[in-house]
């Protein structure tokens, strides 16, 4: 089950993992973007961690909403808007669930988040964006949660699919976002946003176990 304390530890774990990989993410971003994705994601998650520390015994909903706002306030850009909307949507959904939340509640939040990312980013699967990691991750998490799996197993399914999804973006041609102006250069390189999604879910599996 997902309580406020575990939610906080999930965000902290994501922050450490993304921070450890920020140079690699920025390098991926420099191929078709402006080379700051890793820095931005690490900055936003560090800000989220700081804000959550300032909350007194927060609910899971409060943790995820604070994370969403930290992305919106501290990095901006497309990635700030999209990741912020993703975490904010999870927070909004968990606000309507019990505390602690069940794996199915988190999955429902992730589905809301995916829908919002696709709407805000005008992105569909197959366009070389974070959606290519997020969409299979959410769908596998739904299958696992529907079968009654534990939170760790649900997140494990999400992490594996997210990683495969991120790897699949290497051969794709970008069709949404700024990378579409450098379509040729970006073939052969994984989408940095999709890689960040995979890193976050991978950090969550270990934390939930």
């Amino acid at each position: 089950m997902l309580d406020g304390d575990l939610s906080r530890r999930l965000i902290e774990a994501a922050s450490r993992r993304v921070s450890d990989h920020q140079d690699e993410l920025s390098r991926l971003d420099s191929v078709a973007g402006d080379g700051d994705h890793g820095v931005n994601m690490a900055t936003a998650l560090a800000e989220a961690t700081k804000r959550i520390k300032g909350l007194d015994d927060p609910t899971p909903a409060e943790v995820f909403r604070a994370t969403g706002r930290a992305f919106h306030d501290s990095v901006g850009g497309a990635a700030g808007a999209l990741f912020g909307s993703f975490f904010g949507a999870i927070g909004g959904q968990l606000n309507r669930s019990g505390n602690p939340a069940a794996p199915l509640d988190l999955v429902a939040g992730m589905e809301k988040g995916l829908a919002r990312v696709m709407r805000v980013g005008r992105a569909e699967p197959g366009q070389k964006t974070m959606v290519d990691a997020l969409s299979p991750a959410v769908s596998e998490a739904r299958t696992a949660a529907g079968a009654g799996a534990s939170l760790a197993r649900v997140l494990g399914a999400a992490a594996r699919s997210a990683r495969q999804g991120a790897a699949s973006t290497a051969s794709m041609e970008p069709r949404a976002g700024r990378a579409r102006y450098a379509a040729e250069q970006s073939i052969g390189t994984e989408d940095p946003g999709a890689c960040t999604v995979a890193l976050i879910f991978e950090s969550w599996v270990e934390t939930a176990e």
Partner: protein
Amino acid sequence: MSVRTRLFLNNPADAVSEMLEGYAAAHSDVIRLSDGMVVRATPKSEGRVGVVIGNGSGHEPAMIGWVGEGLFDVNVPGPIFSSPGPGGILDGIRAADRGAGVLLLVSSHAGDIMNAELAIDEAEDEGIEDVEMVILYDDVASAPKEQITERRGGAGLFFVWKMVGAIAERGASLEDCARIARRARHRTRSLSAAMGTVAHPVSGQPLGDPEDTSVAVGLGVHGEAGTRLGEDVEADQISELMIRRLVEDADLPAGARVGLLLNNGGSLTIMELSVLYRGARAELERRGIEVARSWIGPYATTLDMAGFAFAICHLDDELLDLYDAPARGAAFVMPDIH
């Protein structure tokens, strides 16, 4: 050619906030800082449409130098090359509101549009009405003409800001301000060129291939790649090629009157700019197009990129009148002489 990776900065993470403090202090007669936003030192009179824009930093003097009389009311600077978040833009909308509605202008880039839309949603949720958003684009390299709304914002938006700022200052309605934004957009085209690349000041990563020293046409303002022309191409050839592309894309007939902008993308010398301008002017004259107004200088830069952009705006009496209207920002002044 090497990429300059060391800049005269303190902690790079503080570069944007320290830049804003220094810039605002140096231009305190025109602007001041308010909660991280650049606002006019003397606010526009009540009852006039407020004009606001959020944008990534690293493009100065855009847009911090474009706040002032006859220009923007508020600029919300984001991190380097990243739009500010929805909260910041919403603050900007509030700060620009003089009781006659607010026009939120957006240079078309994925992050800028997303955050502006999220901000408009939040404004609606808070009961703030009378906010209109217009998405601006002009860069002919970014999408074919048949998909013109997919194009990104480039240096030509210079003309849009100037004309919208002028009509808002005169007290036009929100609807009329938005109409001018769309008209100016419709009649404006830009194209950029550069050699080499620049490094991101925070990550230190080059934005493009640091080994490639050829000239590229059609880059984006964040170093998005363009088409390579090779190394031996002369200035006149580049100017001619770029002007031809702009004129053809805009279907400009002989006899048309244009405003011609030559934007310094960062580190070009006045010598290079003047030679490039000379070539562009000659090509326009060959085509029978009258250059009624010109502006050369750094408007929207990409840090210290060795690059530039040409933009043309097809003027008519209304747009020319708005272009000539007085304006006073830190980086752009139109004297009251017309």
